[in-house]
């Protein structure tokens, strides 16, 4: 039984069909890459799954529960978390507070009014643990705005991970960073995802990254799923080769 099953998802913006009848399933403990050219509908699909956008049509079942009409916080409670294409952090807050807030929210402590946040040792220890897993241990007291781009990308994922989701959706986790740094980020993300036993959907343009880290690849084009399969199957898919044009699919180019 898939962890997530989306059936017949559609979303239009005016005359533009951003997502046009997508069927999409995610098995437990799989790392899936969502690829496609700009405007293929990848981010819109992520927004539909996480509840940031309501679908015009279709149904999303997650972990046996119909989450199609659940608001964002409801889907987070169900176990879906995300990071953003453009790093989305609480810039004025420290690295520790960014992660700690996610823990407070997850544990329904966010409405505590009279308890000092700093006195919650359990939340602080857990936040420090998460920060350590993402290699940011020595940056805990730095405001998020003071981090380098690669560190900001990692913190963005760490905040989502701190929600202890079953499914994490990462929208271009390596965009805007250098080639060497990309592998560093993805190594950490992969380690955390695999050791945590969660599923991940990674929206990515860099095909080297996609082929190296994915269990499965879903290629989207003009709002539809063009091809889906293991990296080996995708490399051999004629439609994908046509999409990638002159680029060598083995290299991604």
């Amino acid at each position, binding site marked *: 039984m898939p962890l997530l099953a989306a059936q017949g998802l559609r979303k239009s913006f005016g005359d533009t069909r951003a997502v046009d009848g997508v069927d999409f399933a995610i098995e437990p403990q799989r790392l899936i890459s969502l690829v496609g050219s700009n405007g293929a509908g990848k981010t819109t699909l992520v927004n539909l799954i996480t509840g940031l956008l309501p679908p015009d049509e279709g149904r999303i079942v997650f972990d046996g529960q119909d989450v199609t009409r659940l608001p964002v916080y409801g889907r987070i409670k169900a176990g879906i978390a995300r990071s953003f294409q453009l790093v*989305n952090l609480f810039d004025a807050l420290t690295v520790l507070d960014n992660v700690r807030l996610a823990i407070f929210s997850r544990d329904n402590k966010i*409405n505590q009014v009279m308890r000092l946040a700093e006195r919650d040792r359990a939340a602080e220890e857990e936040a420090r643990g998460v920060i350590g897993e993402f290699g940011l241990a020595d940056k805990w007291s730095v405001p998020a705005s003071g981090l380098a781009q690669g560190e900001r990308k990692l913190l963005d994922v760490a*905040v989502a991970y701190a929600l202890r989701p079953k499914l994490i959706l990462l929208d271009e986790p390596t965009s805007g960073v250098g080639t060497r740094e990309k592998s560093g980020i993805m190594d950490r993300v992969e380690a955390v995802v695999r050791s945590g036993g969660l599923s991940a959907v990674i929206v990515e343009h860099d095909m080297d990254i996609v082929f190296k880290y994915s269990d499965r690849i879903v290629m989207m084009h003009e709002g539809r799923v063009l091809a889906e399969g293991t990296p080996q199957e995708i490399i051999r898919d004629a439609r994908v080769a046509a999409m990638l044009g002159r680029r060598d699919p083995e290299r991604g180019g």
Partner: protein
Amino acid sequence: MSTPAIDARATASGRVPAAASLALLAALLVVFPYVASSYQTILLSYGLVMAIAAMALNLLLGYTGLLSFGHSVYFGAAAYGAAFVVKYLHVVSMEAFLAGGVLSGLVIAAAFGFICVRYTKIFFSILTLALSQVGWSLALKLFWVTGGTDGIRVPTPVLLGGVFGTPQDKVVFLAHRYYYYVLAVFAVCAVLMWRIVQSPFGKSLQAIRDNEVRAESIGIRVRRARWFAFVLSGMFTGIAGVLWAPLNGLATPDVLYWPFSGELVVMTVMGGFHSFSGPIVGAVAFNYLKSYAVGRTEYWQLLLGVVFVVLVLVLPDGIMGAWARLHRRMRKEG
């Protein structure tokens, strides 16, 4: 004290001088009636009352990123709440005033906030302003209830059931017993507010202020948190309104009118809305400045306006923001 963002980085070494400064300040406030004139003490009482209202406003402005131009209505509703307790229940207990006033502020803030938090930025500000003027016009038009432009008299109240007695001389009462009452309520409000902004809820407000989309995507119910902050803010403003009523002796529609909301914003910005202590300092400073200007010239609004413009241009982070910058520079050079 430092900015809300930097508060989280307060170190143990920084807390010792802060605690010493607070203790010194508390001692000064306690001995103030014995070293200053009655006039100065009453003036400081007004300043402390306004400081509670400015702190409350800053829960929305500084911590949640919502600029309210309508806080006069919660302040005024609470002042009228106290006046109604006298007029209709014939009770002159300060604690009854507080109960009536805070309830008025809370109920109105809950109703108005429910509408206002659906919007942000200028739309939020305009909505708060418009709704507050509903309160002002009701106070004017329902004269058989509110006394119209004459308002309702608020007599000298009995404090804590009269265990400390109530002097006949109103000035003596206001400059001693009532000053200490105001000081105690102010201290309680400041501690409560400090805990609120440092709590998980307070942190979530700062998160919403900085990045609403991200806050939502970690499961914070943004609108509900804003509404809760709005209600708390209205309730604390109500406490200030109740304390103000016996000082002024009258609850009149002026206190519901929008320029008073503007004054609260000016106090908060003047002190520095990026810090916890800024609105407190701004409220006390503004109160002295206004009293000085009113006593010196009939063009006091012009004088205040000029001072405010100069302050915003010279000290864009307010008095406490400038102080923090100066402090950092001195530490760096030292």
